[in-house]
């Protein structure tokens, strides 16, 4: 592994930032479309465009924000908001932990905080896909189109959501779920245990939404309980080998 620091000979910080921007543009475009449908959920929860912009700037997290806006619409407690946000974003604990193993020991705390600020499935993916140590400046470049697309998309979804025809809103409302499928299905194809987890999760979620006892719980509570139970059982029955976690 090479240690990429700004003092290394031949290192061109501007070039690295431009590479990050280039790789971040398709991500930002995809985020814009998905964030637009997230904005529709935010509008239902009563957020103004500015509030949606700020929420998305500080929480670049599709599932977490969608769950949070649903809770706001249901007038949930702040404690429930904190727990559901923690659970729906728990995967970033793993990604942030994985990134910590790919940082040069020389990288200072400020760079770690700034790179951590915008850990997402896609930005994490392109950062660790590069050889060697993670270069914070590559990530900063990628953050620019990603955050711009995500935040303005959310604000525009709030502004435009109610001027769009009903059938357009209905169609856009599945964009988020499409994004979730694009995240969970490729690993499920590669790993039978993940595939099993997805199938069990679908079935259990359906069961919990129709059985009266469980259906009376909030969607957030059902998500927490199912996630903890199914992931724990999977971890006990099928502990993951270390080399798999490095991927």
């Amino acid at each position: 592994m090479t240690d990429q620091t700004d003092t290394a000979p031949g290192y061109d910080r501007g070039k690295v930032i431009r590479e990050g921007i280039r790789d971040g543009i398709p991500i930002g475009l995809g985020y814009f479309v998905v964030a637009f449908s997230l904005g529709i959920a935010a509008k239902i929860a009563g957020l103004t465009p500015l509030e949606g912009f700020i929420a998305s700037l500080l929480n670049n997290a599709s599932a977490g924000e969608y769950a949070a806006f649903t809770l706001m619409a249901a007038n949930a407690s702040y404690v429930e908001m904190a727990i559901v946000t923690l659970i729906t974003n728990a995967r970033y604990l793993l990604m942030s932990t994985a990134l910590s193993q790919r940082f040069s020991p020389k990288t200072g705390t400020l760079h770690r905080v700034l790179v951590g600020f915008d850990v997402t499935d896609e930005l994490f993916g392109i950062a660790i896909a590069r050889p060697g140590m993670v270069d914070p400046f590559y990530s900063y470049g990628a953050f620019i189109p990603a955050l711009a697309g995500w935040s303005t998309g959310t604000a525009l979804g709030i502004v435009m959501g109610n001027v769009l025809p009903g059938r357009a809103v209905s169609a856009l409302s599945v964009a988020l779920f499409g994004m979730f499928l694009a995240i969970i299905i490729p690993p499920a194809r590669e790993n039978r245990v993940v595939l099993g987890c997805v199938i069990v999760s679908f079935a259990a979620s359906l069961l919990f939404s129709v059985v009266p006892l469980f259906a009376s719980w909030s969607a957030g509570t059902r998500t927490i309980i199912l996630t903890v139970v199914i992931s724990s059982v999977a971890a006990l029955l099928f502990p993951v080998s270390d080399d798999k976690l490095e991927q």
Partner: protein
Amino acid sequence: MQHSIPIYIAVMSVVTLSVKILPLTLIRKPINNRFIRSFLYYVPYVTLAVMTFPAIVQATDAPVAGAVALVVGIVAAWNGASLFQVAAACCALVFVLELILV
């Protein structure tokens, strides 16, 4: 009681940013507990799967359109379509199906 949206946003932001920033900043060694590592490995897939179904079927005006979008989204992602392509395909499909169904 009615809750405040700015406080909601503050709570979710503090939690999200802590989750993203603290491990990267504080952990300088690998986590050795195999159960915790395995649990964290499975969490994203389980959470997203639970949130996707049956919600996708309930989100559309015609439940059949949402169900077809689910199947097509799975097939597209299985065959390597990008995040943007899967999301766009699901939207386009629901739009066209509901022109016929609704």
